[in-house]
């Protein structure tokens, strides 16, 4: 188990390194000089030159990359050009807001999606199954930012049931929760559908497996077969899906944060881009990428713990 976890972690580190290489290539190799862009058209040649030197842009490309790489591993993502604050601090300030949003979205979509998937699988082919099927497909199809805008229009503007803007007063949990409802609805709604579908599908697949036939032939009760023998296998794909899904949720949360004027990584990046504040952009991308990879490593380790076959195949 430990070996498996270590291997998985090693792979994660390699993936992050490759991702950093790509990020570096994208930002620094593609034409357009960050220094002159950052300073705007009215900057003098000397100003640009001095900023270039300060940012290390006058060095050969591979030295720039090595520096970027080494400092990133030390946790130094550079400093913001204008305010001079460390980028990591700025990004980490915003991270909790995004995490809260994603946690909210995951919890309610899992709590709703798994039971719906089970019900659909058990009542396969029936009316309830069909309704759950159509609804799942529908909520998956509609883009989350449209859901965000429409729910803002309906619940905040028209009905005025819930607040439209911000993350709530600091320290006031009730207010924060009220501010969380609409954004997490927008981010999580599609996931109810995804989870319900995958649980239904893997449940049906598992129920057809020959070991389930064996269990039936030994007279085990349907309850035990469904919820103990089959569900244990059927939730495994859900965990993988959620790991990958964190990426999608980070994307949806960008929209949710902009629509609901909520602080967070997405809003930070969006605003940094409009003023061409590159260090913030790369820093935020790196932090979210690391976050994504870490979540996936954890998801794989959880699966390894639940499924002895996975552990064995990694040895």
């Amino acid at each position, binding site marked *: 188990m430990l070996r498996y976890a270590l291997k998985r972690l090693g792979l994660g580190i*390699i*993936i*992050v390194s*490759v*991702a950093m*290489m*790509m*990020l570096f290539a*994208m*930002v620094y190799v*593609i034409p*357009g000089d960050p220094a002159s862009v950052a300073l705007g058209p009215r900057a003098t040649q000397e100003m640009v030159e001095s900023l270039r030197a300060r940012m290390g842009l006058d060095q050969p490309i591979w030295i720039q990359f090595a520096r970027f790489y080494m400092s990133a591993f030390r946790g130094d993502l550079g400093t913001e050009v204008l305010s001079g604050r460390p980028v990591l601090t700025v990004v980490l300030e915003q991270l909790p807001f995004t995490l809260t949003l994603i946690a909210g979205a995951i919890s309610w979509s899992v709590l709703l999606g798994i039971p719906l998937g089970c019900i659909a699988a058990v009542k396969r082919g029936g009316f309830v199954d069909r309704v759950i099927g*159509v609804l799942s*497909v*529908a909520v*998956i*199809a*509609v*883009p989350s*930012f*449209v859901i965000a*805008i*429409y729910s*803002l*229009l309906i619940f905040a*503007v*028209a009905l005025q049931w819930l607040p439209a803007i911000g993350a709530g007063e600091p320290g006031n949990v009730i207010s924060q929760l009220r501010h969380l409802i609409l954004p997490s609805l927008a981010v999580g709604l599609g996931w109810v559908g*995804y989870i319900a*579908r*995958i649980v239904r*599908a*893997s449940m*049906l*697949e598992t129920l057809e497996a020959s070991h389930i036939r064996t269990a039936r032939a030994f007279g085990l009760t349907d309850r035990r077969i469904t919820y103990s023998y089959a569900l244990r296998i059927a939730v495994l794909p859900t965990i993988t*899906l959620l790991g*990958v899904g964190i*990426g*999608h949720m*980070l*994307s*949806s949360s*960008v*929209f949710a944060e*902009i*629509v609901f004027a909520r602080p967070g*990584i*997405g809003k930070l*990046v*969006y605003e940094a*881009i409009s003023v*061409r504040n590159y260090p913030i*952009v*790369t820093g*935020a*991308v790196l932090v*979210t*990428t690391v976050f*994504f*990879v870490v979540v*996936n490593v954890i998801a794989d380790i959880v699966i390894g713990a639940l499924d002895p076959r996975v552990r064995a195949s990694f040895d």
Partner: protein
Amino acid sequence: MLRLAKIWRIVRRIVREPLGALGLGLVVLVVLSALFADVLASYPPTKLSPADRFAPASFQHLLGTDHIGRDLFSRVLYGGRIALSIALGATGASLVIGIMLGLIAGYGPRWLDNILLLVFDALKSFPTVILALTLVTITGPSLMSVVLVVVLVSVPGYARIIRTQTLVLKSAEHVMAARSMGAGSARILTVHILPNVIGPILILASMDIPVVVAIEAGLSFLGMGVRPPTPSWGSILNDGFANIRDSYWIVVAGGLPIILTTLGFTFLGETLRDLFDPRLKGRV
């Protein structure tokens, strides 16, 4: 003639499913309205008329007007052209690239496979929208940037599926049999592997069309997609969002076509998949 009869049979099978009929209807509606936008629209989509700003829906303006008096109905029709052409173009490009890379990774040498897998994993580990925003800042907002984003985001998915299938088929007995006869890699890939992996991936791609529509609209909503004044559903939403408290109809006009298009293509794709490849059921 035979082909037409075959297509007709498929259409009849789709329509027999309620969801398929609804999906096909919506898709036909969206495609026709985009094709005949110039006939159906009563105003040019970019024509300003400051006198009519913020007009709610009426017979002159079926969906109302926006903050600079452009007719929303006309903009929605022309926006459909943009959305659909990006969806088709970008999906097609990603498919071609994805299939080629997948075949190379699955059939080629092990080291190349490992490198490609790492690249795919790394690409997928960037959150889509943040990656898109970063790219667009570099390349500037344009139609091509949107296509580029879609390709970068969807190629790893297609390639991975094709790779897995290819790996399985590579050691399948019918491929071994062809190799033992002396067939070369080109023949094995095109005759013995590709026809067996392409069906599922085409269906998956058709189900990705709504995703591409959403990416285009999303980027345009953030002002990072097609440049104004080109009409796009996303930019209509952007215009409307600024005025959501007073002129709700603008966001409604921008959002509805997105919802109808994504639902239409998804329902159609689901039905196609259930009819032609039940094995894929439940894949997301």
